[in-house]
């Protein structure tokens, strides 16, 4: 029941928050905070009993595994399971949920009840995506989490919110439909080859499908995940959605929604289609590299601060794609680490942009400048997260990118060299961001009413700093937690022997 309780908590909390708006407009956010904190409760026994060292790792992949029949007609079960990878991403989701809540606390003043309903339901959907092990259930969560996100963007967003919301919804739905067809084809082929009708990942994974169709099925899944990641030809929803969304929604988008794409590739595409993913790998690596360079180049021509951060995400997620398809344990661990580190550093940047916009009512780089003089604390955080995103050694992003590059160099040296140039480009746009915002000429007379970070903001940001530093200095527990050797990635087993 633990995992179902974890899912139900934000769902019920959201409903309660919506209802409570009738009594007091300030109540919904408190209820949202409470329900997010309660979500940690089911995880506590797990976290306390889990020793963070390699020697006592659990022998099976799944830490918790719960299943109830749902639609017996198609043999679909409500099957949730948790392993190290999903645990890490769930922790990230819950943390970023708190961060989003903190940034929405004062920013959202209209229709608060509905806002927190949608925020919590999006989080519930994302948790469901990370937990669902039945493919049908996974698909349901995958699609349903978009609906509240659509409302978040289209009701509380900025000027062009309707356009951005529709674009976001349609891009991701298109990917979703493709996945639905591939899903049906996968189950159908599996049924033909084994005689078992099932949507269960654990059963499907035992007999990976083969044949010509397997390649196309794998491609369908991969494209659906690439849209969410986002990789190059499907990335154009991201800049609009991030820019127009309210800060809290941008945080959720950047920190966790994008991660569902990477999670999907690692969890589903690689183990379910070992043959096809080897065929796909060169193209995916190429897409990843193009994404890295293109995202970085687009980032440094932006004048909108939020758009800049959004394009930097495209660049960073290119590394995830690179890491996933390098077929190498280092690169894969790097990809997981990149998802965590990017989730934290980018959402911190979105928090900062939100703060700046709340104070100065602009995100235009040409109108900002010289913030350090007036807001030293906020600017110091800006500097920290700026250099985190350019991959400064000692922080999580560096570990991730370094591992990905090392891992993929063995097989694809040329592409990796190109990808490494992304690090330089990252330095260019990050420093540009820091320079134009925090240093340089002050463009406007100082308004003494604009205050520096308050305690709540300060606490949020400093805790994110510490997590990034911890990820950078002591990443081993996180690597141990991700049971790559247990994940039935067949190509990895040979590599480990060779490399260790």
């Amino acid at each position, binding site marked *: 029941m633990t995992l179902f309780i974890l899912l139900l908590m934000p769902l019920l909390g959201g409903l309660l928050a919506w209802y409570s708006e009738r009594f007091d407009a300030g109540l919904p956010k408190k209820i949202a905070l409470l329900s997010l904190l309660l979500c940690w409760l089911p995880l506590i026994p797990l976290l306390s009993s889990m020793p963070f060292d390699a020697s006592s790792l659990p022998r099976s992949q799944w830490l918790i595994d719960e299943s109830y029949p749902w639609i017996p007609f198609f043999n679909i079960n409500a099957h949730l399971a948790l392993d190290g990878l999903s645990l890490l991403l769930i922790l990230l989701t819950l943390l970023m949920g708190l961060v989003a809540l903190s940034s929405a606390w004062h920013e959202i003043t209209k229709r608060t009840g509905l806002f927190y309903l949608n925020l919590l339901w999006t989080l519930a959907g994302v948790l469901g995506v990370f937990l669902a092990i039945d493919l049908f259930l996974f698909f349901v969560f995958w699609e*349903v989490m978009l609906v509240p996100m659509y409302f978040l963007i289209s009701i509380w967003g900025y000027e062009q919110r309707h356009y951005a919301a529709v674009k976001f919804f349609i891009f991701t739905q298109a990917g979703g439909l493709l996945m639905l067809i591939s899903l049906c084809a996968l189950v159908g082929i599996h049924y033909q080859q084994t005689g078992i009708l099932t949507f269960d990942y654990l059963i499907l994974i035992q007999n990976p499908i083969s044949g010509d169709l397997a390649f196309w099925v794998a491609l369908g899944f991969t494209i659906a995940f690439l849209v969410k990641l986002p990789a190059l030809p499907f990335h154009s929803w991201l800049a609009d959605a991030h820019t127009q969304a309210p800060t809290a929604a941008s945080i959720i988008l950047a920190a966790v929604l994008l991660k569902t794409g990477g999670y999907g590739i690692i969890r589903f595409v690689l183990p379910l289609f070992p043959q096809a993913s080897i065929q796909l790998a060169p193209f995916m690596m190429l897409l990843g590299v193009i994404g890295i360079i293109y995202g970085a180049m687009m980032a440094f021509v932006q004048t909108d601060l939020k758009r800049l951060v959004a394009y930097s995400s495209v660049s960073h997620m290119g590394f995830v794609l690179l890491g996933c398809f390098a077929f190498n344990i280092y690169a894969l661990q790097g990809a997981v680490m990149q998802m965590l580190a990017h989730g934290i550093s980018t959402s911190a940047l979105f928090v900062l942009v939100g703060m700046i916009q709340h104070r100065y009512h602009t995100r235009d780089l040409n109108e900002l400048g010289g913030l350090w003089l007036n807001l030293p604390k906020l600017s110091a955080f800006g500097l920290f997260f700026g250099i985190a995103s350019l991959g400064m050694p000692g922080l999580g992003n560096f570990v991730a990118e370094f591992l990905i590059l090392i891992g993929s160099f063995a097989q694809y040296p040329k592409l990796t060299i190109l990808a490494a140039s992304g690090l330089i480009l990252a330095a260019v746009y990050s420093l540009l961001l820091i320079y134009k915002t925090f240093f340089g000429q002050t463009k406007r007379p100082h308004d003494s009413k604009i205050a520096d970070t308050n305690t709540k903001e300060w606490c949020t940001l400093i805790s994110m700093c510490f997590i990034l530093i911890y990820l950078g200095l002591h990443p081993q527990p996180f690597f141990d937690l991700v049971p790559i050797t247990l994940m039935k990635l067949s190509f990895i087993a040979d590599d480990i022997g060779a490399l260790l």
Partner: protein
Amino acid sequence: MNVNYYPAFILMCGALMILIQLCFKRSHITSYLISGLSLFLALLTQFYLQNHADTSDVLFVLNAQTSFVSLLLLMVVGLIWAQLYHWLKTINEQKEEYYLLFLLTTIGGLIMVSSHHFASFFLGLELMSLSFIGLIAYCGPDQKAQEAGIKYLILSALASAFILMGAAILYLQFGSLSFSNLLPNTSSQILPPWAIITAIIFIFTGLFFKLSLVPCHLWVADLFEGAPLVTAAMLATLSKLAAFIILWRLVTLGHWQQYPLIIDILSMVAIASMFIGNFLGLLQKNLLRLMAYSSIAHFGYLLIVLLLINNNAIEFSSQSFNTQTLFFYLVAYLFTLVGVFSIFMQLPKIKTLDDLAGLFWHHPVIAITLMLLMLSLAGIPLTLGFMAKFYLIMAAVSQQLWLVLSALVLSSIIGLFYYLRVIMAMLKTPADELIFKDINSSGSSLSLNILILFLVIGFGVFPSSLSQFIQQISG
């Protein structure tokens, strides 16, 4: 008399009673109650017959499947009827005859869905179409309604003529008008194959007109916009349900999928309907026109069922699963559509998308219901519409119909645009709040909304019982 004819017989009695009542005294409420009572009794009888029906004679086949379709039809009509009284009060016409025609179309539909012979099929079709003409042109002085009535009169006469011609050619070949004799018998081939194909195309033309599939779709938007709202709802649900069931029965009983040309025509019509319906829906401002185009697209999706060849070798391509797909899709689509129309009936003043602006902030229950119905039409998970799409994709994937599947994906994405536009319109800040004054938010319409939500979301989240029921009747 065979017990299986009771539902239609009860409705007939209801219609006659309204006629008799009209001779003595006009009373809106009496006609309303008579029609309601006869619908209710017919529904109860049909429900009872669900487990007992299994006979067939020359004209009709009455088994679990036709009984289920009749039940579905009566439920849909009942849901429309529930809104009828409030809606009729707002128009300035004699009201009693509407109930009469309403019952007559229902009888026509009932006859059609269980007919097994060209004679009974044609009888039902004409009864339905002729009553529809009256229903469409009901609001006398309204020019648009008159125009729509004339359009329907001419076009449906033309469609009937096509069907008759087709039936005549088939009679020439098979020497019988019964559907069960439609199977081609190679030993006694009188006509060349192209003549039979021509006959099939003639019948298709007539039925495609009723289903408003491309290229016989031009009338549908004008009609939905011009006709009275309840008539539009009946046209969209009852008439299309009956026509599709007949189409499906003809294609399966006659094994028409054996002709490659017919398969090509069906796939082309399906693909064209998906794309043209969804593309034309994109820029519509009028809500009813939007629904008209959406229904073209949905019947385009449903045509995929006819392309499924019954091949028991592969799972999900057996006769049984194809039938289940058809029934599930019909149930899902019709319930959603009736829901949408009953919401429209609760919003009498609202005609265009712009009028919807701000509905969410004034009448959240109505707006949320409409929102979920739109999501169901768009096929978002946890709604009935998604499960229907899932059935359809499951069946089509197992037969590897990649061409129509890719058309389905692309056109659903286009369709998503206008379903989202409806949702978005409701979220906007209202321009004029006066428009919401006439909204009927009484307890009865609230409970109806809750019932619709229960059907669309409840069966969307837990489809098992519905699936099993449908499996039983088509097994």
